[in-house]
């Protein structure tokens, strides 16, 4: 694949992702947070972020 075509595919994918419903984007955000947590922990470093998960009886 030529460089121009790769660039065009990426632009199209970003445009598509931006047009997703916000609820889907929030789900994707939480997946990103979980991935960041898992990768940080796997490397032995402390995870400084927060994964947005509602827990039972949580205030």
């Amino acid at each position, binding site marked *: 694949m030529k460089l121009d075509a790769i660039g065009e595919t990426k*632009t199209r994918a*970003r*445009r*598509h*992702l*931006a*047009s997703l419903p*916000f*609820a889907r*984007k*929030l*789900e*994707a*955000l*939480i*997946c*990103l*947070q*979980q991935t*960041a947590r898992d990768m940080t922990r796997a490397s032995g470093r402390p995870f400084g*972020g*927060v994964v*947005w*998960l*509602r*827990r039972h009886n*949580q*205030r």
Partner: protein
Amino acid sequence: MSSNDSSMTRGILGEPLRIINKLLHERLILEYAIAGGVATLYYTEPVLTYDFDVMCRFPCEGTLIDPSPVFARLKEWGFKFGTEDRVTLNGVPVQFIPASPGLMEEALNKAMPVSVCGVKTRILRAEYLAAIMLKLYRPKDRAKLDLLVGNEGVVFDKSLFLNILGLYKLAAKWRRYNEA
């Protein structure tokens, strides 16, 4: 994400927004809008953020802004505070950011009404959000600015953005950003 996780994340911002709307109803906050990473996410592709920033106008006496009644009420309701006045509302760390006079105040005034997770709220317009990112200009702000102005899928009124930059003396900074 497992289906169990999915059920716990669906509508994740609904309850925090209902709580913030309650603060609005009690007039502990006079006005607010979703800002920061979550507002960026609203307009553009998924981007990693850990805080739910809400830009607020608090009641004030003279020039003194005092958000402490908000924090006191949230403590009364049993919510726990972390570092830098972040409060966790149903699993989401929320940060209340006072809208400073000038760009932030105007951004808050011009925020758009939207419905998020079934709750009526307001969100900063993409053009004001980008101008605030340009003004703050920390690495994480520049990354969000790249997403807002560099994604063809974002509905972005370039002429409004340039007007804002002119009004708040950010045009030269915008030129430098484009040259970098």
